[in-house]
Structures are given as C-alpha cells and as structure tokens.
C-alpha cells in the first residue's frame, strides 16, 4: 500500500494552511511577480548577469566514480553545473506571517531537492546550489508563503520576529533593509546581508490583516487563530508525547 502523507493534524485554518504549504500537490497561490534579476540582487551572492561561481567542474566534465548512489540520485541543475552552495534566510514575524521557521523547513523538504535547511526561533536558513537557490527563493517570495511587511530576507542581524510591529506595519529590522515607500510598496534598499543596493528592489504591497489571518501558519490568540481552539492538534501532541515517553521512538499503540 502506498504511503499517503498526512502532513499534520488539526482542524483549524492554521493547520490546513500548514498542510497546504507542505503538500507538493497543492499549488501555492502566486501573489506577486518578482524578476529573476531582483531576486539575485536581494540575495546578494552574485551580480545580476554574472556567471555562477563554481565549487567544482560540471559533473559531465569530471570523472565520476562508479557509484550506485550517484546513479540513483539525479543531480539538480546547480549540482550538475558545479555551483557553489549559497543561502537564503527568512525572518518571519509572529504576527501572522504566512510561513514560520519549522513550517518553512517542512515545506521546503517536501517541495525542494538538495537542500540543507536550518531552523531557529527567529530565522530559518536554507542552503543549496546557487542556481537552485534562486529558483527556490523565487517561489518562496512570489507565493502565499511571503508577505513583504512581515517576512524579510536577512543574512544576519535578524532580530525582529517577536517584536511589536512598526506603526507602518513593518517588522523591525535594525538594518532597515526594506522600507515601506509612499506608494505603499515595500522596497529592498539593501541586500539580505545589509549591503546597500545600486537600485531599490520592489517586492510588492503588504497583504491586509484579513488575508494574513486566513493564510497564516502560526497560532496566535490576539491577532489570529487561538491554539487552544484546535483541540485535535493539542490532543495529537499529547499523544505523541505520551507514546514517546512510554515507548521511545518506536511507539506501539496500547
């Protein structure tokens, strides 16, 4: 019998949004268009139009050992080309940002290949081959997993996820990498590591509170969905904890 992933428990909209983001069969809603060049600028790893720096020759040009694993695992485009490994890191506000650190990691693991995510409380990093990274980042920024005001790309000095929002609705950023312009559009004036950009990169208008509440993947009793109200979710966690306590990591149902 084929395994059917369930992605996660819960009856709330938060739980459903989490499943949607994780499920690769669910088509993420595209909310904005960002050009490839703009993605490259905000990432800050290479100049737009420049060649991809490489860590090794293209696989086709080097003598690959006779390895069954290499035959089994199809390399990504970035791996084929020998790209170096680079990163994108997101800081997600706890005030209903559409995605959140572990949620990002889970969604990326289901949707992307050849990635190395790292999950913390205030940031989530994913590393992979550079040209793969640009594709992945484009998806993460253009779709319902992103909001220009509450999510930002930050290589360092990520402090802000748990702070109150600025009066204009923007998440705190000590470096003010992105700002809300007078026309209501969020513009990156620095790349994710904080180096000033030659030109501002528009990343779109912040989503409204209603949309955010409907698309968020964090429980929040003040601005969103209360965790306590999703009884199925709570019971599921208690069950997991109980089974692990009694049986370790190979639980047997009583």
């Amino acid at each position: 019998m084929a395994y059917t992933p369930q992605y996660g428990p819960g009856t709330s909209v938060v739980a459903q949004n989490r499943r949607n983001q994780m499920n690769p069969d669910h088509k993420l809603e595209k909310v904005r268009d960002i050009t490839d060049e703009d993605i490259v600028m905000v990432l800050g790893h290479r100049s737009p139009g420049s060649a991809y720096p490489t860590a090794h020759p293209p696989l086709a040009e080097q003598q690959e050992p006779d390895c069954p694993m290499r035959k089994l695992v199809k390399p990504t485009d970035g791996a084929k080309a020998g790209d170096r490994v680079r990163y994108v890191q997101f800081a997600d506000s706890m005030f209903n940002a559409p995605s959140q650190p572990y949620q990002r990691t889970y969604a990326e693991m289901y949707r992307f290949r050849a990635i190395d995510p790292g999950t913390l409380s205030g940031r989530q990093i994913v590393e992979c081959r550079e040209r793969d990274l640009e594709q992945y980042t484009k998806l993460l920024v253009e779709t319902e997993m992103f909001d220009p005001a509450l999510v930002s790309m930050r290589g360092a000095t990520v402090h802000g996820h748990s702070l109150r929002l600025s009066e204009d609705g923007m998440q705190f950023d000590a470096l003010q990498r992105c700002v809300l312009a007078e026309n209501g559009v969020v513009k990156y004036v620095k790349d994710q590591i904080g180096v000033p950009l030659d030109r501002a990169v528009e990343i779109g208008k912040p989503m409204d509170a209603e949309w955010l509440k409907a698309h968020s993947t964090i429980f929040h009793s003040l601005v969103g969905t209360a965790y306590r109200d999703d009884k199925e979710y709570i019971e599921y966690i208690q069950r997991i904890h109980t089974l692990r306590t009694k049986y370790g990591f190979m639980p047997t149902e009583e």
Partner: protein
Amino acid sequence: MAKIERAQKLFLDSLNQKFKGQDIESEKTTFYNFNGVRQSPRKREFMKEAEAIEKERGISMYDPERCHLGGIPMGQRQLMSYQVSGTGTYCEGDDLHFVNNAAMQQFWDDIRRTVIVGMDMAHATLQKRLGKEVTPETINEYLHILNHAMPGAAVVQEHMVETHPGLVDDCYVKVFTGDDEMADDIEPQFLIDVNKLFGEEQAESLKAEVGKSMYQAIHIPTIVSRTCDGGTTSRWSAMQIGMSFIAAYRMCAGEAAVADLSYAAKHAGVVQMGSLLPARRARGPNEPGGIKFGLFGDIIQADRKHPNDPARASLEVVGAGVMLFDQIWLGSYMSGGVGFTQYATAAYTDNILDEFTYYGMDYLKDKYDFDYTAPSPDQILEPTQDIVNDLATEVNLNAMEQYEQFPTMMEDHFGGSQRAGVMAAACGLTCSISTGNSNAGLNGWYLSMLMHKEGWSRLGFFGYDLQDQCGSANSLAMDADRGLMGELRGPNYPNYAMNVGHQGEYAAIVSGAHYGRGDEFCYSPLVKICFADPSLKFDFSDPRREFARGAVREFMPAGERSLVIPAR
C-alpha cells in the same frame, strides 16, 4: 484542561515600568528613534570609561558606534531595563552580566571554595591508632588552630610566609553535627546551629540524617579558588587540616598516621560540591558541570525562608541555577562566549516565569484541590501521564496566550530560547511540585517543548533540536547512559551537556519535587546545612535579591586586592 483567570498578573508592573507611557497590549510601536546606544545610561558609562582607558593605554577599546554593524549601533529598538523577579529592583541588562555583577561572582565563588569534610575518620585515627584523647576541648582548640591555618597561616614550621588576613577574610571553618549534646560543647563561633537555622521539623530530620557524626564546612579563600580552580578547594583544605591536626594534637609531622588523616581529608571524608568531569571537559571537581541538580537544590536555601511556598523557593533555584549554569558554565567555561546572559535573565526577571508558575499553582488548586501553600507528602498527586499531560498542556497554553496578549512581553523575551525555557520551566515546576516526582516534572517540561514548537512553529536555537525534541523519550528512563532520576542528573548529563537555557530550570524542577512535599532536603542533608550558614558572603536563601544587590552595586564581595595594590 480549562483556562482559569488570575486577577493580578505579576508581570504587569514590570512591563509598565519597562515600556513607560506605552500601551503594553498594543502590537504597534515606533522604532529607530531612540538615539541608538546612547539611550542607555549604562552604555554611555561604558563609552566614557573606554574613552579614558584608551587615552591611558593608547589602544582602542569599546566603540559601539563604529564597530557595531558597520556604524549602526544597537538601540534601534528600545534597550529595556529589567526587574529582578521578586525584588522590585530594576537594573539594566548589562548589570546582570556576571562580569559586571559582584554578587553573581561571589555566588559561584562561595560554592567553588566549599567542601565538607567529615571528622569521624580523623578522630578514630587519633583515638585508636595514636591513643590521643579527643574531647570537646580538643575539638574547639583544633578549630581555633584550623581557622588560623585555613586562610593560609603557619602552625608548625618556622620562618613561613603567610597570607594577609585582610585578603582572605572570607575563609573559615565551622562544624555541624546531629548530636545536640556535642553541639552544645562546641564554641558558638565554630558551630552551624541546625536548631536555630531550620524550622523544628526540618532541623530534627536533618539532625537524624547527620546522626552523631561531625562535619567541617570549609570555605577556602575566594582569592585562592579564583587564582587556582575548584579542584584546589579540597587540596588546600586538606593541607591545612593536616597541619592543624598536627598542631592541635601534638603529632609528629612525619609519622605514618598523618597519611591516614591526609587521606581522610583529601579523599575518604570529603564531600565535593561538584564531581569530577570526564577528561574531555577538562575540569576538576568543584566546577559547575559536576554539580548534581539535587545537590544544587540543597545549596539554595530559599525553602528555609519560604517553607510554605514551594513555587517561590523553586523560582529562586531557577534564578540561581540559570545564572551559574547558563551565564557562567555554558556561557563562558564551556563555550568560550561572553556569557549567555539573556538566555538566563529571561527566567529571573520581570516576574514572567513567576506569573506562569503561580498560574500553575492556581490551576492545581482549581482542578485538583492541591494547596501548594501546605507542602506535604500527604497531598501530592499521583504522577500519571494523564495528570502530567493535563498540567503541562494548560500551563503551556496559558503562557503562550500571555505572550500573545501582551506583545510587549513577547518583545521582552525576544528570543525563542528565552520563551521556551520559561514556559517549559513553569510546566515542569507545576508537575514536579504537585507530584513530588522530579522525573514527572521533566516530563512536563518536554511536553511543553513539543507544544510550543507546534503552536508557533519555532522553538529555540539549534540546541533545542537536540534535547527538547527527544526528551520525552528519556525523561522517565533510568537506563544507564540514557536516563537517571532527576536528582542525580546534572549539567554533564549526556543530553544536557551543551545546551543553554535548561540546566538551571532542571535543577529547580528537581528541587520543586521536594519543596512540594515539604522534604527537609533534596539530595544531601550535609549540603543543606552547610549553605544555611549566615557567615557566608552570599546569602543562599535569597539569591535573586543578592543578584539584584549586585546589579545596583550594593553587594560587597570577597577576594578584593585593594590592600595590596596602589590606591586609585
């Protein structure tokens, strides 16, 4: 689980003080207009001091407006003050860095420089092997000589150099025993009087544990243990003990019996505060990593001061524990960092953990009719999985909701590790205090972690991935190298060894199990008695108050060198 209401939230005063003139329940504020690092009086003091130092030594130093983020100083948001929980004392975060806080240093100094040494073996050697008479008079004379010798003075040899008493005035030796008659014969200056320091029931029980034995509570000079290390304490103490026996009992300095006394003083009769760590940790005995959580619960004396409030007593253990284990042990000893201060302070500032914990106490009363103000083995709850799940779930949900309802509190605890440690501590304490079972408390901790992670899709730093997402499986285990009863776990317990934000709370959870039962001690009656001594520089019955005194520069430590350095 069912939410209950608490009329007066303990953190409100702090939030209102920290965020003066602001709506502490609003999710909006202003940033980037605080004048950066100069908004903080303490940072301004640092800058002024550094300027003077630079002029004197000609080498640059603290320069936050140039060196931080390429010219963007910290302080783009409000740099908050903190109230040390339960004290009403406000200070700046910098004042809680252990380097800036003399009370914090003395807390650790007083532990590291302490060993307890039994006298029974030495007395047996003197009486049976050497035929010497041991009487209260000889013991008092020995203690007089020992209190001369322990700080570093000579007792037998000619032409010896000695330490300046003004530099080692914190060094002394007292004794204690469970035998009231013998205690009566000891000069009061040398006696830790169990009857006076403990309540009647606790004193009787402790005395029964000690019996007719007599122990020396030895505190070598702070300045010595600082210059050397914790492993020095038992050696220094044993050396002076040996010399004092020779002097007091007129022994031959070279006779073989002295070796027996030395062996007893150095090894057989010694109780170290911390056990020796494995070679890879490169630490001797009496260093923080070797302090068992149960023993730490006995070092802290808050249960003597608050016998009918196990929550308060446990919260004092949290404060003391996170300061030692997070700020000093992991923050500097182990990591080489500059002290993981703000991981730790979250658990003992602004009454936030206090509020979460007392919510648990109220919930216990409301649902289980458990009265935490009357600690007794008779009313503890059975530590079933269902009860632990219920308590930890409700306390954790309440804590998450408080952070959500008060965005300024979320901003106060701006890091996930801070919130994770605080919420899980409240859950663990509620479970351990009510069940009298340390492992049940640890189990509540780990349910909190899973629940936190799923609710907010985040937890702490990478380290939380290690122990907190697999902790359920080992919290009740007793298998070798996988589990242990809470009292015997410690900072070097396999899963706990490198993870900030946990060890102090674990120590408190373990202690809470005993405070909730009204036990006389957690692990060692000897340690409980030893640290009740009011002559110690640091008052172990009120560690958070002491840290607050250190923060506002009112605490006078030991080990100062002003007597032997040029006046400033």
